Each structure stands twice: as structure tokens, then as C-alpha cells.
């Protein structure tokens, strides 16, 4: 019946959508449920218990890896957001010129290059520096994370800058504000939600990284994801579920915050 045709209601689409959601969320749901398993199996239910959370909390290796993840994530997020802010300002507050598109591509390169390639490249590059300087601290991880977080921090900041009315900065200059004061009093406050969004996105991306971290880390420099990967190789207990669940909660919290911050207008 042609008169009843509606692009929004097609037969079968509900089923496809439901399947997609189930495939996406059912495994996560199962993972979360078994985090509360009293038995030490990830597939047989033995009653409700919080003991795996407690055991994870008392596992110094877990705490150690978590703190390292936060430390790297925080430093990398701040550094990459600073670089991304400068890059966004430089690429939006200018007339278009030949090579600008290339610069966009260069900034967003980590989004396109396979992580494994970056990982191997960094491994070789950093090993040379290690030999040369003798330094083998956490700095390599921070540098690597900062580099691949830049495009993620860059995107919301640039979007915010592009939506900002340039006349506002012109008006400030007209009212005797020097370029620095214009930036401090007008551009930065209006850009702030974008910067916060970039910061949080960068933090989550850093927290989540496995591939590059696995290649770059030295002994005893496990982050939470690489620690979990190592544990799984040795056999799984619901402790992994509990850590994952806590990790999931944190990510959801940050992403939700990111959503509200980036949605905030003016």
C-alpha cells in the first residue's frame, strides 16, 4: 500500500536493530554479571558475591597497573590537549592556504595508521633512544600516548573553534584588547567546553590502549589493559570480570560527562 509507505518503518528493521544491540551488549552484560559470581568460574554461576572486587582491590599488581594507567592517561591527556589546542587554533584561525589540508591529515595521522605499525615503529625508535640515553622510565609511554591522543583531543576543540563567531574576537580587539587578552578573555572561555571534551576523550583513549602500550612498555610498566591481557593468558578468574566492570563504569562515567560538556552551548 503506497499510501502507508514510511521510510521510518520498514519490515525487518526492528529485528536487525535488536540483533545488533544484543550482539553488542549481551557479552558485556554477561561479563558484568559474572563479576559478582561467588564461584571462581566465569561460566558457572555460584551465587552473588563481591569477593572478586575485594580481591582485585587487594591485588597490589592491579592497583599498581591502575595507578600507572591513570598517571600516564592524565599526563598524556593534558599534554595532548595542549598540543591539540594549539594545532586547532593554528588550523582554524587562518585563511586557507595550500598545504592546510595536508596539515589536517598529518594531525589526524594516528587515526589512520594501524596501531600495530605505530607500535613497532615506536619500539624500534625508543630502543635506540634507550641505548643512547640509558633512560628507561615511564616517559616513553607518556610520549607515545600523548602522540596518539592528539587527534582525539583535536577534533572536539577544532569543532568548537569552527563554530565560534570570529566577530567576537574582532569585537574584543576593537575594544582595546591585545591579542593575548583577546585569547584569555574571549577565545579561551568560549573554547573551554571543547578543551574539556578533548581532555576527557584523550584520557579515555589513553586508558584503553593496548597495542601501542604493549610494544613500548618496559618490564614492570604494565598498564591496566596490558596487565589484564597478561592475566588472561594464565587463566581467567572472575577477578578479571570485576576489574573490567570497574573499568567499564569509569569509562561510561567519563563518556557521559564528555557528552554533557560537549553538548553545552556557550
Amino acid at each position, binding site marked *: 500500500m503506497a499510501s502507508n509507505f514510511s521510510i521510518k518503518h520498514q519490515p525487518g528493521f526492528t529485528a536487525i536493530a535488536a540483533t545488533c544491540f544484543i550482539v553488542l551488549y549481551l557479552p558485556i552484560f554477561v561479563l558484568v554479571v559474572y563479576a559478582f559470581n561467588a564461584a571462581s568460574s566465569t561460566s558457572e554461576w555460584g551465587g552473588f558475591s563481591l569477593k572478586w572486587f575485594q580481591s582485585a582491590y587487594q591485588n597490589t599488581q592491579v592497583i599498581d597497573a591502575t595507578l600507572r594507567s591513570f598517571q600516564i592517561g592524565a599526563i598524556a591527556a593534558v599534554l595532548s590537549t595542549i598540543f591539540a589546542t594549539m594545532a586547532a587554533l593554528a588550523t582554524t584561525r587562518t585563511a586557507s592556504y595550500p598545504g592546510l589540508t595536508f596539515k589536517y591529515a598529518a594531525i589526524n595521522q594516528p587515526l589512520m595508521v594501524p596501531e600495530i605499525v605505530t607500535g613497532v615503529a615506536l619500539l624500534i625508535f625508543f630502543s635506540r633512544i634507550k641505548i643512547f640515553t640509558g633512560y628507561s622510565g615511564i616517559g616513553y609511554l607518556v610520549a607515545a600516548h600523548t602522540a596518539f591522543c592528539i587527534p582525539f583531543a583535536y577534533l572536539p576543540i577544532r569543532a568548537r573553534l569552527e563554530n565560534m563567531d570570529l566577530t567576537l574576537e*574582532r569585537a574584543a580587539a576593537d575594544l582595546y584588547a591585545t591579542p593575548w587578552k583577546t585569547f584569555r578573555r574571549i577565545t579561551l572561555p568560549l573554547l573551554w567546553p571543547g578543551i574539556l571534551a578533548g581532555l576527557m576523550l584523550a584520557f579515555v583513549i589513553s586508558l584503553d590502549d593496548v597495542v601501542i602500550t604493549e610494544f613500548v612498555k618496559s618490564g614492570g610498566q604494565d598498564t591496566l589493559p596490558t596487565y589484564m591481557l597478561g592475566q588472561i593468558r594464565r587463566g581467567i578468574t572472575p577477578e578479571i570480570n570485576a576489574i573490567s566492570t570497574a573499568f567499564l563504569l569509569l569509562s561510561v562515567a567519563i563518556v557521559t560527562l564528555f557528552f554533557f560538556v560537549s553538548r553545552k552551548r556557550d
Partner: protein
Amino acid sequence: MPDKPDRNAIEVVNVSKIFGSGEGQVAALDKVSVSIRENEFFTLLGPSGCGKTTLLRLIAGFDFPTAGEILLYGQDIAPLPPFKRPVNTVFQSYALFPHMTVADNIGFGLEMLGKPRAEIKARVAEMLKLVKMEALAGRRTGQISGGQQQRVALARALAPQPKVLLLDEPLSALDYKLRKEMQIELKRLQHETGITFIFVTHDQEEALTMSDRIAVMSSGKILQVGSPWDIYDKPAERFVADFIGETNFLTAAISGVGSGKARATLKSGTTIEATVAEGFQPKDNATVVVRPEHAKLTKDKGDLSGTVENIVYFGTDTHIHVHLDSGEAFTVRQQNTRSAGCGFERGDKVGIIVGNDAAQVLRD
């Protein structure tokens, strides 16, 4: 009107602004020179793309001229950045700072000038009163109406007491009634503050009602500068006559040019007296303009004769379009009365009387 000394606030000397390079070069301003007197309400009038906004941006400092000087009370300001010029702008989009209150917006310029807090507070209060916005001082700029934003933009630009205030089509976003109100308001503010206003608009009616003097611009050039009366009644060029108001163009043979007057022999054979545009180069045939309201329709013989082609009723008046026997078109505007129609009908053979002081000979 405050008395107007002959001191010039702004002198634009041979200013050109060229955008692009090579083949794609466009001259937004082509060797423009104009003087703007202290305390006057000066309007740059022209269609979009004529260069009026470019000239305003050069005076504000948002752009720099390719050639020429811009003098502010004798000092060349053309190379200075905007924050070093004692000139403020009211933007077409108002450009109010959305993260600040109304009062903070108004005080911003003074704060940047490093004025003491107490002085800023007093001046902001004074400005709020001037634009009648005292009640909304603490509001964010997103929480007030378009007309109120307009007032805040004005107060913000006036607060640092600039030597010249630049207004870039500030009324174009307002509805008709509010625009009329703001026109009067702007005149009042200019009168009360005694600041030189440079107003940019494409609206000829706005220009005529508000300005002390008008510069009519087209294609990067200033065609004529004069009082509204000069511009309307004594247009120098075809573009000016055509852009401002409605007018009739007639071809005539010119003779006896002298002391601003000449005799124009129209195609109908009648000779009328006309004023002559400045810079008119004597030639045999020239264009004569007659405003529709300066001509009268008659059923007898007039200076011109023709046939009524169309009659359009406008409420206050009626426009009667006549096809002249010479082949030219001519419109007469006739004031309406309540009692009767305009007295003519389509197809009527009519005469047109061009008044004694109605015709102007253009220079092109």
C-alpha cells in the same frame, strides 16, 4: 544639532584596497578620498559589494589598505592594529560576548584600557541609563531580545568614548517597527554624546532620514557626497539618481549652461530650466532626471505628452505610469485624497507638467 566646526575627524586619502593577486585581483576600494567632519552623522550608502563595509573595516583596523592614508584628527592610523585605535564598532551581528553579562560587556573596553574599577562601574551605569537597559544589567546576552542586544552593542561601543563610532548595518536584523525606533534612538545618542558616527547601510531611506551627510558608493568608488537633500534632489550621476528613490530619466539637448543652471530641450520640443550636476562637461545631449513627485499630470497639453499605461495605488499616493510619445517611460506620483480616485484611467491621453525647479542634468 550641535554646531559643527569644520574640523575633520576622519580623512580618507586616496585609499585603495585590492583583494587577491594577479588575474584574480579585485579592487574593493579604488583611490577613495573622503573627509568626515567632527560630530557629524555620516553615512556610507551603496548596494552590497560597493566597498562600504571594506572602508569601514579599514577605519576600524580589521583590514589594512593596499595604498593610501586614513587620518584620525590628522594622525595616520592606517597601519595601527584595531586595539590601538580610539575608534569603536557596532557590528551587524552585535558580537556581544555570550559568556559575560550585559554590564560586563559594556565595561569590557574600559577594562582593557586599564581604567580603575570605580570609574568603570560609574561609566557602565551611565551607559545602561543612556540606552535604557538598567534593569537588565545582570543578564547574560543570550537572555535578552534582539532590540535589547542592539542597545547593549551600542552602549559597549560608546562606553570608552571613542573619537569615532562605526556602525556596520546595525539595524538590518531588526523588524520594521523596531528599526524605525532605533533610527530615532541612534540620532538621539549621536546628539547626546556628540561622537562622530560613521554609519554603513544599503537602505536609502535609512540614510536619508538619519544622516547629516551621505556618501553614495558603487564599485569601490564614492560617486557623490552631500546632504540627504543634495543626494536626493541633485544627484550627480545616473547611479545615484537611480539608487536613491525613484526617478524618471529623459534625454535632452542642453544649452545655456551657466551658474549651475541650463536649459534642457526635451524630445517633445519643450524647453525647461534645469539645475546642473557639479562637474558637468558641456555636451549636446545629456540625461535629465525628474522625480515622480515633482511632475504633475494634466488632461491638457503639458511639457510632455503620452498615454497612461498603468495606475498603481500605494495608499498614501498613486503612481501613474505614462508611455511618452517620444517612446520614453515616465512615472508621476500623485498624492491621494479620500474623496476620489486619481482622476485618470488607463489609455487616457495626458500631458505632464514638469515644474520649474524639478529637473536636474546629470554629468554622465
